[in-house]
């Protein structure tokens, strides 16, 4: 049997279960909307300011860095499987790749993009 069939059955079962949970929250609770309840929660203060402010650029930097290192990790997986067959040559090939990326990490670190997170 195709191994993805159990995966799909698993997905379907999870979706079903989540549907049951969502049904529970819809069906069993009381419904008493009021204007004060619907305000955004600010520990008792009346809501102030818009819901969206400007955000520091370091969150974007983190997301970009995550993306680039995730791609690197993805390249590491086939190498790791073949690690023993590729031997020393494989280590040198991957070593070059890793050096490039460690160099990149060092540069990012030196420039202070990882500060004040």
């Amino acid at each position, binding site marked *: 049997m195709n191994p993805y069939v159990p995966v799909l059955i698993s997905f379907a079962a999870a979706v079903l279960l989540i549907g049951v949970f969502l049904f529970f929250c819809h069906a069993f609770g009381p419904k008493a909307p009021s204007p004060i309840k619907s305000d955004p929660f600010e520990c008792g203060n009346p809501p102030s300011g818009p819901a*969206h402010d400007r955000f520091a650029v370091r969150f974007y930097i983190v*997301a*970009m860095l995550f993306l680039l290192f*995730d791609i690197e990790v993805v390249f590491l997986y086939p190498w790791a*499987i073949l690690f023993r067959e590729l031997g020393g040559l494989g280590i040198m090939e991957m070593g070059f790749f890793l050096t*490039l*990326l460690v160099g990149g990490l060092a540069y990012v670190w030196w420039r202070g*993009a990882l500060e004040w997170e």
Partner: protein
Amino acid sequence: MSAQIAFYVLALGALVSALGVVLVRNPITSALNLVVSLCFVAGLYALLEAHFVAAVQVTVYAGAIMVLFTFVIMLLDLGTVPARTGPPEGIPKATIMGALGAAFVGLVIHAVRGDIRVPTTAGMAPERVAELGGNSRLVGELLFGPYLLPFEVAGVLLLVALVGTVVMAKRDSVAKSTASRRNS
């Protein structure tokens, strides 16, 4: 037979969500439609027995690139596109581009018309792939064998992107700090 059904379901899903990307008004809905579309494409890769690429597609494309997109949309608070009030703009341009696009698609279909069938394997039979150690191992053998140079070039590309990210993002703060140093 089941491969056909799977193909049509996945392809339909990918197309519908891709249409959703361009047709909905809310940018977050647009981004999520793209995530769904990418997951269906990953399913198509799995149908082609390219399991490693399917997993990587979900992890990197839907799980990293689209997270970046979602971040940007959330943090920039791009509002909903307002409903159109007058006649649509740019009809001549749209017609030309649409015609060129349709011509391109027609050309591609004409070129492959003899080979159109439901894709099930991308080259080797699944039993042979399993014999040779599995899909990921074969990808690795290709990546560190004939395709070593593209792999290393990809590493250089990633390095360029790393440096570029920091240079672009830090430009303002460097300019601000040098300006403040000059003023003080």
